[in-house]
């Protein structure tokens, strides 16, 4: 706490105005004292001796004249071993521990340490007395789950230091002193395994930021093949309510091939978080054989929790991600939903009586969104290893209309757009990503020419479908009708994926490439049908077989048998090959 004192002079919703008698800084944390409780708040505007603070709790009961204390520190999170598998609120309060203390309800003004103070970690020193180190250098490691958690020189220690002392290998808590560092002037810093970092400042202690390119596999066919995401990249999932944004995020959090997943449940339903909370400890991560929870951190600030903390929660999530990135790990941040975060900003901006922009969102909306997504990236660390932060944000556009400010501001800065459509979710076509509207700037698992060809079939099939609605099946030529059937076929067997089928739920890249090749042979073939009925029957049968094929064990007997059946059936009616596809077939050949 600093010397600066203040007193409340106004209350408006979750914003309090405070008169201060000393120095304060923007985004500094302060506490409004009412009775025996201290409510955490953040300074968001300073004018003369008057400051506005957003309070991270309910403001009922605050009166004019109540004292305010200032911490002198920015809103920060605690970094150190023990973050994984934790469930935090937006301000990094551990929720299960809070429940133990307060019961069913979130009592205001109760703040608990983020990292367990009694757990002992086995620390192995990596430097010796006399070594010189700088910020983010590894001093030692502790095993955390399956990872070697690096204990690093705090990122804000900007000088070069000499190791003055270091403990020997052994068990320590996060509060035990493990290292002493001495700077050039002889000042000694005593370090434990934890330190703090302000959430709104990006961690930049790396050698260089690299161009993204390596794919982040999600095991969703439509994503990995058509609209892929790279490690260190960004993507957004906008969609109207009920289109399955949250389910998409949940599936990705389970299957994504990354080291760590950080879920920021930001202003959404509590029920959805509960599913993750209860299921993840039961599910096994196929990559490690341990529970999924061990690679997951959940930041949970659901819709009925205080709005100001919602704004902080996405920053808390990305800061934790950057911290693990510094250990050479690939981290995925899933923010659901960024619209709620933007709305939190809008509420605050309204209370500050700022001049509103479009739909009353603040004018700085775009730069703030851009700043957030730009904290992603693939980096080369000082020791040469690579780490990345990938950010996937869902967007909940008002009325399902993508023209609104948050979606548009997001689209400007992301590398991939996975637009969900109400039409597809109503038709129970899952994942309900619109294959024609969505796009990605990242390279995927299948050659671009091939996916473009497949997409063109889909596009033309869709056109024929639209036309058929007007002129009826009778008025459509057989050739057009076959293209329509091909498009529908591809949609049913490749774009849609059954999340409840144990095999189909997660498809490896290898398998994707293989079955894409098989599908290409069907899409590129020309067929000699007598009439539309025959064509329809042909594709219906083929579709049924392909769905069974999708549900069969990779490279198993059933898989091979069904594949042969599919190819035989195609061969039986094949009359030629589309000449545009000849070259492509060479590249996708299974």
């Amino acid at each position: 706490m600093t010397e600066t004192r203040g007193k409340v002079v106004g209350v408006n919703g979750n914003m309090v105005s405070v008169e201060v008698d000393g120095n304060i800084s923007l985004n500094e944390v302060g506490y409004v004292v009412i009775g025996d409780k201290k409510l955490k708040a953040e300074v968001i505007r300073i004018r003369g001796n008057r400051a506005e603070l957003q309070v991270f709790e309910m403001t009922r009961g605050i009166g004019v004249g109540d004292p305010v204390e200032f911490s002198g520190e920015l809103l920060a999170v605690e970094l150190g071993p023990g973050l994984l598998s934790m469930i935090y609120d937006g301000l990094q309060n551990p929720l299960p521990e809070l429940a133990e203390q307060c019961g069913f309800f979130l009592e205001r003004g109760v703040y608990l340490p983020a990292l367990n103070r009694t757990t002992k970690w086995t620390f192995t020193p990596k430097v010796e007395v006399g070594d010189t180190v700088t910020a983010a250098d590894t001093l030692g490691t502790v095993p955390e789950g399956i990872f070697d958690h690096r204990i690093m020189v705090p990122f804000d220690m900007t000088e070069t230091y000499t190791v003055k002392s270091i403990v020997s290998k052994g068990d320590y808590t996060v509060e035990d002193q493990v290292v002493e560092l001495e700077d050039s002037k002889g000042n000694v810093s005593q370090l434990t395994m934890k330190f703090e970092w302000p959430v709104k400042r990006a961690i930049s202690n790396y050698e260089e930021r690299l161009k993204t390119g390596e794919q982040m596999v999600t095991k969703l066919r439509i994503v990995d093949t058509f609209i892929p995401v790279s490690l260190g990249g960004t993507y957004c999932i906008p969609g109207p309510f009920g289109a399955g944004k949250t389910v998409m995020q949940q599936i990705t959090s389970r299957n994504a091939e990354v080291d760590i997943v950080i879920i920021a449940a930001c202003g959404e339903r509590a029920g959805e978080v509960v599913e993750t909370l209860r299921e993840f400890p039961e599910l096994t991560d196929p990559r490690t054989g341990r529970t999924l929870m061990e690679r997951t951190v959940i930041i949970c600030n659901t819709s009925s929790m205080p709005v100001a903390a919602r704004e902080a929660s996405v920053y808390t999530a990305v800061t934790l991600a950057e911290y693990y990135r510094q250990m050479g790990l690939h981290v995925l941040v899933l923010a659901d939903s960024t619209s709620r975060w933007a709305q939190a900003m809008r509420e605050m901006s309204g209370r500050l009586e700022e001049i509103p922009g479009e739909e009353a969102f603040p004018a700085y909306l775009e730069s703030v969104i851009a700043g957030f997504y730009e904290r992603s990236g693939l980096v080369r660390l000082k020791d040469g290893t690579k780490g990345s932060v990938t950010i996937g944000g869902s967007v909940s556009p008002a009325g399902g209309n993508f023209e609104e400010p948050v979606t548009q501001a997001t689209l400007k800065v992301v590398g991939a757009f996975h637009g969900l459509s109400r039409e597809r979710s109503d038709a129970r076509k899952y994942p309900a990503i619109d294959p024609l509207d969505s796009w990605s700037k990242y390279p995927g698992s299948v050659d671009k020419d091939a996916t473009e060809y497949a997409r063109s079939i889909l596009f033309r099939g869709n056109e024929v479908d639209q036309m058929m609605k007007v002129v009826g099946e009778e008025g459509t030529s057989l050739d057009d009708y076959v293209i329509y059937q091909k498009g529908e076929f591809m949609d049913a067997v490749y774009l849609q994926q059954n999340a409840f089928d144990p095999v189909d739920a997660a498809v490896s890249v290898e398998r994707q490439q293989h079955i894409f090749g098989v599908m290409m042979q069907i899409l590129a073939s020309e067929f000699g049908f007598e009439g539309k009925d025959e064509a329809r029957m042909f594709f219906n049968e083929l579709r049924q077989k392909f769905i069974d094929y999708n549900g069969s064990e990779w490279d198993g007997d059933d898989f091979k048998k069904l594949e042969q059946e599919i190819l035989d059936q195609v061969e039986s009616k094949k009359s030629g090959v589309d000449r545009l596809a000849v070259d492509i077939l060479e590249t996708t050949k299974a």
Partner: protein
Amino acid sequence: MQKVYSKIDAIQGNVITVTASGVRYGDLATVNSSHGTSLAEVIRLNGTNVSMQVFTGGRGISTGDEVRFLGHSMKISFSDNLLGRIFDGSGRPRDNGPTLEENLIEIGGPSVNPARRVIPRNMIRTGIPMIDVFNTLVESQKLPIFSVSGEPYNDLLSRIAMQAEVDMIILAGIGLKYDDYLTFREQLEEGGAMARTIFFVHTASDPIVESLLVPDVSLAVAERFALKGKRVLVLLTDMTNFADSMKEIAITMEQVPSNRGYPGDLYSQLAARYEKAVDFEGAGSITILGATTMPGDDVTHPVPDNTGYITEGQYYLRNGRIEPFGSLSRLKQLVNDKTRKDHRAIMDGMIRLYAAYKESLEKKSMGFRMGEWDNKLLKYGEAFERTMMDLSVNIPLEEALDKGWEILADCFDANETGLKSELLREFWPKKEGQRQESA
């Protein structure tokens, strides 16, 4: 601190401002005017300027009226004596019964810790096939009924109130037409459900500030009953009126409007209410059914749109029926595998065939020739609408499933339904003749 002020500086709409000190945010005050005494709640503090919304409205208040601060925030009496009673938004009796003042509890309390929530697991039976079979209501679910003015959503709610298998009902009326209020009361009295019901009713002619309190008061009481082990069903009608009241106050307070005049925190405000739905492990639960009328039948209007993002599915009520398409109970998968093994199959199968019926109907209206299959579908669709979609039907789930099989057997051959053979063997009704033999 019980200080009296006798000078009101500003009166604007329902908001008055006095110069006072020692007042806390959210505190209550009484305003004595020549028309009687009203409560008022502090909604903004700015130095010594205290702004309050007056529950009975600003009309007729004089600058010389007396304002007395009570030194606490809005509270409501809580006890079993509430059951069977009718109150207004600020907790005053509407039914000539005694005023309740014991055991006051705070309203609008903190939200439930997500770490203490459990995955919903119990079905609430309502006796309405369109709900029980096709979009099962689940304990601790929050679900709105999207409808338009003129649809019988209040009738549906009172039917659910009477038939639902819960311990008690709290009916929160917001901007109810007086007639609707009387109908509710009459129906529940006739149905014998009054003894397990509490009414908090704000009618359309009451001051709008009171309407803002109705959901909070109702949910605070519900929460206490739930903590005592009761399974409570809260019916909110109509939440669009609640949003409109919020809009009115926000505009009076000169807040910057965000979308069609609604305040920027509309989502958070609605969520704070709906998220009160919860299943307390080891105690009771709160389930919320709300009516949301969509102005102009437009689901992208801010109120239904924001509601849809908060709730766990929705029922569309159109033409006096719950629409099978669009309506969705997002939690039904959690319970409908434990009811009867044909439940899911009947649910999916009948809807799929009903969708096919709609297509045939469309073809028919466009003048296309009807085949044999089309005629079967037309017969089926008609029977489905008559038997299953009629909201006045009150039958248990099992009976409804049996009825489903009957309709299917009446209209189709077993292999046309696309249902699993295993289920067909067990549930497909025997032909008329055979049934008589066995009887």
